[in-house]
Each structure stands twice: as C-alpha cells, then as structure tokens.
C-alpha cells in the first residue's frame, strides 16, 4: 500500500520542511491558475524573445559586424565596467559611514538613496547638466577662478550619470551587508578590544567579498542596457552604446538588418551579464532594517568620525545638488509652461496607468502559478526575470516589424510603450510578489484548505487582501518607471504623441532649458505622486 502515499500537490514544496500536502486545492482552481500563469508566461516570452525573432527574420543582410558596431560594443562594455567599478568603490566608504553613525536625517538620507530608482532618467540628466554642464554651476565656479568650463558630453558624462543613479543603489546593498553582520559579533569584537583594522579583517572584509561582486554585476547589467543616458549625454562615434546604435539604425537610417544584428549583440551581452549575475548570488534590496545602525565601540575616534562625515556629506551633495538645481530653475518656469505640456502629461499618465494594469495582471497570474505549481514555476520565474536582460529598444523594434504589415505602428506608439514598460517592470513585481505569496500560502494555506476556500473565494478573500502591500508596491514601481520612461517611445512616437519625458527631451534638444526645467519638475512631481499613491494604497488599512 506504499503507493497510497498520495498525490502530493505542488504547493507542498512551498511548505518544504513542514509536511507534504495531499489534494490541497480543488482541481478546477488548479487548472485555472495554471492556465493563467502559462498564458502570462507565454506572453512575456513572445514579447522578449518573439520580438527578437521578428527582427531576425527581417534582417536580410546577414550577420556582419562592422567597425562601428565593434566600437559600440567596446564602448558599452567599457562604460558599464567603469560605471559599476566607480559606483561600488565610492559606495563602500559611504555605506560604512552610514552603518556606524547615527545622526539626524540619516533615515531620510537612506530613504532618498532608494529614490533614484523611480527618478526619471531624463530629469536626472537635466539636473546633472545644470550642475556639471558647460554653463552649469561647477563651470561657473571654475570660471570665477580663471579655469575653462568643463564639458559633460561623452564617456565621462555617461559615467557621471550612471554613478549618479547607481551609487545610491550600491550604497543600499552594501549597507544591508553591513547591517546583516550580527550585532553580537561587534559586541564580541568590542570585548576583545579589537581595533577598526581588526574588525575590518575579521568582519567587514569577508562581508564585502560576499556582497561586492553581486553589486558590481547588477550595476554592470543596468549600465549595459542604458539608453536614455547615452541618448542625451553620449552620441558620436566614440560614445555610442549598442542600444543607442539600434535607435540610430532604426530611426535615422531605417536599416533593419543592422538594427537586427545590433539587437542580437545587445541580447547576447546583457544575457551573458545576467547569467553571470545570477551565478554570483545577486543581493536584493529589502529595505528592511536599514533604519538602524550598529553600535561601534572601536569607531569613536575623531579621525574616523571626520572621515565618515566627509564621505556622507560628499555623497549627499552629489546626489541632491542636481535635484536642487532643477527645483531652483524649474519653479519659476512652472507658471508659463508650453500648452502641449498638459496633453503630454495626460498621455504619460494613461500610459503609466495601462502599464500598471498590464504589469499587475502578468505578475499576479505568474505569481499564483509559481506558488501553486512549483514545477511550472521553475521555468516561469526565469522567464519573468528575462526582461532584466531584454532591451526595450529590441522589443520595440520587433513589435514595430510585427505590427507594420497589420496596421500603422505609429498610431499604436503609446499602447506599445505601455506594454514594453510593463514587461520591464515585471521582474521587480515578481521579486515583490512571489515571496509574499509563498508566505501567505505557508501561513494560511492549510486553514484555507480546511475551510474549502478555493478558486475565486480564495483569490478575493485570502490572496489579494494579503498581497495588498506588495501589489501596491509593484503598481507604484511600474507606474513610476513608466511615467519617466524615455525608451521605446522615442522609436515610434511622432511629435503629436509625445509623452512628458519625450517632450522634455525635445525641449532640451532645442536648448529651451528654462522650460525644460519646468517640465522636469512637473515630471518629477508626477512620478513621485504616482509612486506614492499606489504604494500608499497598498498600505492604508492593510492589517498585518
């Protein structure tokens, strides 16, 4: 009778280590959840890999990599490596300072370190121009003491912008590593009268060895697919990334075979980077517990305090000045914004709304299937994360080629933008939802089973209410990312359909900088508002 061990359903594995589960979910619900999950996964596969296939089919010229393409590849890898290296190297002393000091405003600063993620790239670029550009604050100060103004365009501008975006991310990841060292160990070290040097050797360097490679790879990966920064600050034969080259091939030359070849190169590069990143256990920003700091008996000396204060001040200044510059310049300009701004803002808002809806539907369908059918989940989850390596420009190009024979792709520019943005937000939504859903199952799954809660009742009475926070956060992220996106929309949209970031880019290209600052301020405000509203919506009245 050994075969009576029973049909152990998939969810058993979620509660691995507890008890195997028998016949836990009604058959109907299983099938529906599974089908929805498979459908969502196939949709994501079609958008990420299917679009590449579409590009490939149209590439008639064969696979030839010209000297310009090699230059683009070299530049992409080089700037990504430099950006990641600088971000990580600068983040270590900043994180060390934040880990062992307590000061007023520390919590705000740590929270702000999470903000660049939802800060529209084009807004940050404008801010950096206002500070580091030819007529920016730094150049003006240099001019006072008789130096030439500095230029921001080219390799160093691209790296500056990438460090601006990724230094905070690196700082948070490394700070997390620091705070993950148990306080008892620091206490033990204190009883042993360890010096800062001993502590670095015993506790900190092993932690850094574990955390830094993953942090480096994440930033490297982000920088290889960077488009908006290269579009605005790069350019020319010596500072063109592969993504930017795709844009040029498609938009300026309409050379589809070259766009296809470049798309493949982009996919291979970011795919390889993603694979390496996965292998070396990428740290995840949890945000939990970053508000505390470790009591350090060894670090009470004046010299160390000065060093920490210096690093923290430098980082805060570097991150906040560009935003202050936009506020200073944009506030007066808010009064007389060009009329087309409001239409663009409205377009951006509904694109963001659509993107949020698509992200939530895809992420929820996949999450439920992943949690209830772990065997399916094993291939579903990686597909969801594929989007990290996928290039929005490649997806956009593919969709254009697919839509072209059927309808006018330009007319669909905004829905397509929303769709691509949704796929880009999907990995982050899955990161938030899958662990939360697994926890709901392990805490309440049995209770729900014993009450016969299946299908819709289980979804609406248990799963959705319990997932409110991660759902709200996912929606917030998807909305803010879409609001600020300057990617695929540049491929398709004609001037009549500009979103707010695209309008901002055009104003900058026309050197109408005051108006641009006003629009940037508006865009920043809207992005933050979208994020806040959704995230808040998930928290209000959420019973824990």
């Amino acid at each position, binding site marked *: 009778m050994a075969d*009576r061990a*029973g049909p152990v359903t998939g969810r058993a594995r979620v509660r691995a280590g507890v*008890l195997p589960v028998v016949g836990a979910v009604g058959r109907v619900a299983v099938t529906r959840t599974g089908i929805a999950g498979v459908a969502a996964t196939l949709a994501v596969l079609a958008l990420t890999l299917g679009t590449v296939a579409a590009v490939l089919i149209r590439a008639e010229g064969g696979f030839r990599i010209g000297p310009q393409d090699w230059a683009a590849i070299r530049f992409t890898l080089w700037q990504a490596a430099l950006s990641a290296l600088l971000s990580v190297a600068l983040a270590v002393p900043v994180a060390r300072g934040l880990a062992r000091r307590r000061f007023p405003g520390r919590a705000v600063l740590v929270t702000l370190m999470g903000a660049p993620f939802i800060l529209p790239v084009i807004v940050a670029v404008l801010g950096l121009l206002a500070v580091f550009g030819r007529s920016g604050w730094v150049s003006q100060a240099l001019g006072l003491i008789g130096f030439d103004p500095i230029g921001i365009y080219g390799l160093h501008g691209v790296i500056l912008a990438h460090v601006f975006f990724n230094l905070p991310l690196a700082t948070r990841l490394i700070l997390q590593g620091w705070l993950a060292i148990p306080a008892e160990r620091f206490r033990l070290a204190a009883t042993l009268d360890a010096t800062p040097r001993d502590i670095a050797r015993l506790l900190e360097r092993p932690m850094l060895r574990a955390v830094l490679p993953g942090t480096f790879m994440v930033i490297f990966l982000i920088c290889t697919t960077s488009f908006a920064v290269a579009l605005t600050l790069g350019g020319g034969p010596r500072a063109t990334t592969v993504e930017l080259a795709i844009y040029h091939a498609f938009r300026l030359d309409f050379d589809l075979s070259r766009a296809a070849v470049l798309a493949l190169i982009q996919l291979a590069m970011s795919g390889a980077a993603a694979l390496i990143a996965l292998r070396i256990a990428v740290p995840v920003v949890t945000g939990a517990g970053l508000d505390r700091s470790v009591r350090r008996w060894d670090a009470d000396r004046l010299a160390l305090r000065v060093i920490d204060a210096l690093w923290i001040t430098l980082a805060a200044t570097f991150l906040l000045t560009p935003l202050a510059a936009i506020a200073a310049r944009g506030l007066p300009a808010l009064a007389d914004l060009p009329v087309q701004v409001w239409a663009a803002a409205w377009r951006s808002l509904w694109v963001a709304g659509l993107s949020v809806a698509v992200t939530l539907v895809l992420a929820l369908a996949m999450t439920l299937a992943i949690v209830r059918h772990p065997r399916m989940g094993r291939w579903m989850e990686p597909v969801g994360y594929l989007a990290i390596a996928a290039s929005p420009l490649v997806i956009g190009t593919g969709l254009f080629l697919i839509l072209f024979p059927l309808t006018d792709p330009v007319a669909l520019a905004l829905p397509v933008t929303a769709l691509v943005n949704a796929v880009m937000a999907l990995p982050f939504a899955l990161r938030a939802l899958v662990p939360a859903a697994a926890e709901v199952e392990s805490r309440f799954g049995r209770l729900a089973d014993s*009450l*016969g809660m299946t299908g819709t009742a289980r979804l609406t009475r248990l799963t959705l209410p*319990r997932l*409110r926070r991660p759902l709200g956060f996912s929606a917030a992220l998807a909305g803010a990312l879409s609001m600020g996106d300057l990617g695929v929309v540049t491929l398709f949209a004609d001037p009549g359909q500009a979103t707010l970031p695209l309008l901002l880019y055009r104003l900058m290209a026309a050197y109408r900088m005051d108006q641009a600052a006003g629009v940037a301020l508006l865009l920043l405000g809207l992005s933050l508002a979208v994020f806040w509203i959704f995230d808040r919506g998930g928290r209000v009245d959420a019973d824990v």
Partner: protein
Amino acid sequence: MLTFEQVVLEQGDFRLTADFSVTRGSRTAVMGPSGAGKSTLLAAIGGFFAPAQGRILWQGTDLEALSPGKRPVAMIFQDNNLFPHLTAFENAALGLRPSGRLNTKETARVQDALAQVGLAGFATRKPATLSGGQQSRAALARMLVQDRPLVLLDEPFAALGPALRAEMIALVKSLLVSTRATLLMVTHDPADARALGGDLVVVADGVAHPPSLAGALLDAPPAALREYLG
C-alpha cells in the same frame, strides 16, 4: 467512530503507527513529547499528510480521497487561525461559506455562534484588536458554524495562561454538548487532559497508543507517559 486502520505515517526518519478507534461523540486529549507526532496525527486526519500505509475511516468511510476542505473535520491550529484582514464575524462566516456571501438566515447563524462563544459585541473587530482569549473564541465560533462532526484542536490555547486555558476548555466542552461532535485535542498540559474529562491518547516512541480514560491514565501512568510527565 474514527478508525485508524494500521496507519503508518512516515517522513524521513520519522515513523508513527496508529491502530485504534475513537468513539463517536467522545473527547480525547492527545499527549506526548514534542516531535513524537501529535500534530502529524491530526494533520493526517485533516488531510494534510498522507499515510504511507493504512486507512483512516470516519463512520466506515475511507477519508483518503477527500481533500482537506471536504473532510468531516473542523480544525483549529496553534496559531494563524484567523485572517488578520477580516473581522471576527467574517472570520467566523468563513466556516459557512468561503466566499463570505451569506443570506439572512446564515448571517443570523454566525451571529448566534459569536454570541455562544461570548463575542456578541465584537463582530466587527479585527483580530489585531482582540485579546488572545477572544481570538480563540472567534476561532471556536467558526468551528461551531462549520458544524463538522469531527473537531481537531492542535494546541490552540498554548499561548494562553492557565486560568484562561481552563476557561476555554470549559467553553469547548459546553459547545460540544450542543454539537455532539467528536473532539481530538493536542495538549502538553496534563491539567488540560483532566479538565477535558474524556480519554487520553499517548503518542510516544513511534506509537500512538489506543485511548483510555484520561483520569485513570494520569493517576497511574504507564512507562511512556511517566517519562513524559517527568
């Protein structure tokens, strides 16, 4: 009658055998050292753990084919018995309909159950605003509403103090008088077993022993029980 027919529960190194019956309408305490398999025994009845061998029967019917929600079983676990986002009323109502949509008659029944457990004025309160004892009462209200012939309690009052626990056991007893359900309750306190005033199943050394009168067993404990009681 609940029957364990040469049941073997296995997981890795763990192995527990059970071969006995529990009379319908009886109250049985389940005691034994931690890790002996008390909760696993209840999980097997509830449908969360498939026996490697043997059958578990209720009134002569094999339970194996039934999913946990379809078994004649109402269960209360050690913790996480209430959904934090639902009110006491909604939590109790789940025992009737998982969708929570009730007609007038059903609403009245849930309210009646809340009154029976002494939560008449607390229907709209969420678990976070209820005391530990009140949370237990809400779970018992749901059990009442479920109206299943077999009630399994897996140390549901472990977090409560002795006086409150005695009060809860008295409440459980009085509720069972009206529902005539069969009760199995895991506990680690001999006082609970005595207060329950029924049988006792000792789970130790890989065997769930057949039930016998709790009072007599505790007065003259056999070796396995003596070791546990210390």
